[in-house]
């Protein structure tokens, strides 16, 4: 009885993990279905045919240019989600991804414009610059938490506000922007040197950003670090139970600072696809809000590299195809925001329900399994 027969064990493990997958998928699928339903009702009450709207969106997603747009955008979203998720995995709420990527992208744009090295040095240089700046900026919150007990939520929110001022302070003619701007009324850094341009793959639907591979690499490294390294184990242990981690010998303070820096470093990459693949400069209208979007996507993807990939694709699909709605049928594009919002709310609730259900179910199963084992042993003893 001390070693249950391997066949039984295996089938049990299979059942558990099969069920786990179903449970893991249940929540997001439920959330998406629910939010589609809610938005359909909203559209219908505003006198629009919801099916036409979904049709517009799906049609666009089947077209090659739509797909390129979705993938390009998902690249940025995925990086944003990974940045947030890295902190979340150890219960560290880095709300400051927003500020970190802005500051990082600004510095990367500046360096990219000032330095002109061969591409194979230039591009790594810019990646490192952005990650370094993002990490440094995030480390402020980490150090404040460790040495002054300031909640990272508060400090990162403050740092987001400060980042806006930093950009405002630096993005002026004569500092990071050229003295004589080539454009009137808008200010941006000088365009980055040609060697800074990241490769892209020309497709029928337009240029697919090569940064997609960086995003995939980040995902792979993310997963590898968490599941295959000591550091990742310490990080997950801290996330699951700080007290147990402390007792197990994890230096939680050090972990807080390191995780914050890594999270910030990933955040530093968020602005680069746009910078190195599309606009080639950092201007006042550089897309804001990606940090917060990343938090939503991380939440939806359950902080798992695979889950976040799907979540990023979903959000990217919604945003990209949603922009078609006003032009093709006069649907309000706000419906996309409503949908994203309801998905996130539903998914949070659903995950918690599913988690509790799963835990309870496993306890029951283990109990039943043990009882069955005990009964079997008893029978054997009796017959023997």
């Amino acid at each position, binding site marked *: 009885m001390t070693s249950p027969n391997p066949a039984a064990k295996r089938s049990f493990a299979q059942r558990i993990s099969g069920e786990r997958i179903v449970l893991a998928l249940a929540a997001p699928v439920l959330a998406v279905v629910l939010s589609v339903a809610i938005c359909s009702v909203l559209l219908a009450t505003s006198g629009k045919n919801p099916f036409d709207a979904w049709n517009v969106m799906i049609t666009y997603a089947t077209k090659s*240019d739509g797909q390129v747009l979705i993938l390009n955008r998902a690249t940025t979203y995925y990086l944003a989600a990974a940045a947030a998720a890295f902190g979340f995995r150890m219960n560290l709420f880095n709300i400051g991804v927003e500020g970190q990527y802005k500051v990082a992208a600004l510095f990367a744009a500046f360096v990219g414009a000032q330095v002109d090295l061969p591409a194979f040095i230039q591009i790594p240089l810019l990646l490192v610059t952005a990650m370094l700046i993002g990490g440094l900026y995030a480390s402020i919150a980490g150090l404040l938490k460790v040495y002054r007990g300031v909640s990272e939520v508060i400090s990162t929110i403050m740092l987001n506000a400060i980042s806006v001022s930093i950009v405002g302070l630096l993005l002026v003619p004569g500092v990071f922007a050229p003295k004589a701007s080539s454009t*009137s*009324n808008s200010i941006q850094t000088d365009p980055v040197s040609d060697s800074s341009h990241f490769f892209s793959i020309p497709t029928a639907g337009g240029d697919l950003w090569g940064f997609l591979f960086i995003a995939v690499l980040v995902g792979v490294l993310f997963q590898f670090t968490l599941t295959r390294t000591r550091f990742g184990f310490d990080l997950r242990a801290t996330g699951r139970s700080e007290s147990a981690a402390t007792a197990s010998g994890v230096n939680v303070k050090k972990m807080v600072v390191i995780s914050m820096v890594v999270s910030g470093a990933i955040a530093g990459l968020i602005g680069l696809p746009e910078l190195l693949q599309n606009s080639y400069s950092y201007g006042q209208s550089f897309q804001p809000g990606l940090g917060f979007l990343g938090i939503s996507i991380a939440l939806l993807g359950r902080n798992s590299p695979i889950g976040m990939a799907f979540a990023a694709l979903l959000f990217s699909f919604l945003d990209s195809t949603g922009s078609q709605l006003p032009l093709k049928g006069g649907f309000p594009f706000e419906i996309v925001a409503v949908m994203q919002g309801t998905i996130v709310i539903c998914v949070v609730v659903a995950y918690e329900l599913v988690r509790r259900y799963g835990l309870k179910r496993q306890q029951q199963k283990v109990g039943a399994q043990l009882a069955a084992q005990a009964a079997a042993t008893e029978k054997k003893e009796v017959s023997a």
Partner: protein
Amino acid sequence: MRRSMKLAAVVLSGSLGMASLAACGAKSTDTNASSGSSSDALKVGMAYDIGGRGDQSFNDSAARGLDKAKADLGVNVTEAEAKTGEAEADKETRLKNLIDGGYKTIVAVGFVYQQAVDKVAKDNPNVKFAIIDSNDKDQPSNVTSLLFAEQEGSYLAGVAAANKSKAHHIGFIGGVQSELIKKFEAGYKAGAKSVDPNIQIETTYLTTPPDFSGFNSPDKGKEAAQGQLDKGADVIYSAAGSSGNGAIEAVATAGKWAIGVDSDQASQPALAKFKNNILTSMVKNVDNAVYAYIDSVKKNTPFTGIKLFDLKANGVSLATTGGKIDDIQDKLKAASDAITSGATTIPTAPTS
């Protein structure tokens, strides 16, 4: 098994996107590209900045021009607007969608469109673009910039303010400390100093870029105006989008003079309560510019390069609603003549 599941998921998710990219190379534009040019009427697409039609300000003014063109010139129009926090790609997609819909004349409202317009215009040389409030010295030849001499109108506002100020103390509130708003400040100050070289001028900017909330935070405007009133200013010019509404409220409550911006604010319903305290407004006739541009395209003599709408071209002017500047009209006329004749040149950036 667990790991292989995950691996499978990765491969699946990756290949899903890629496979269909390769398989169905159809673009969303393929189907309706032909349907575009079926009608003879000129088709004009307009891409607004955030706020779109109904923002009581800049976008609305552009919309008025479009409406007038629709009514008077019989053009076919469509509109789209930006949403908050959108990506550069969204702007490009918006412009492309307009082109796909057969709209070969496109007006982009606001400098945020500069990059997108440059890019899309390069790819669509047969489409004509106009961009308001922005120009890029490298922009393609099929892009026309519609610019305004804000500093000239503001100069007149400064002249009016200096003449009306009893305390010899006036104020300027800028929404966002951007290059555009600095032009307002520069003109206003120059105008005021031309009347009274020793006049005291308060300057407050609500936010600095990239924080653009200064254009739509009436509370911030109100606070800034209150601060300037407390320091003794008795005429306050706010170039701050809807934040100016807050400033006007504060000034009116204090019984002092406010100067509005962009549209004739004394005639706006939302500000009707305060109209007795609105001295004048520095009107930026975006509608005229939009109409003139569409008209030029229609007549097959489209504007090219940079089209400056200055005082002379009636691109900027002072509103006279309420007749509160009637008594200084001759002084304003003199200043105005000096500008149009070129006798007065106005700085486009604040000197101090």
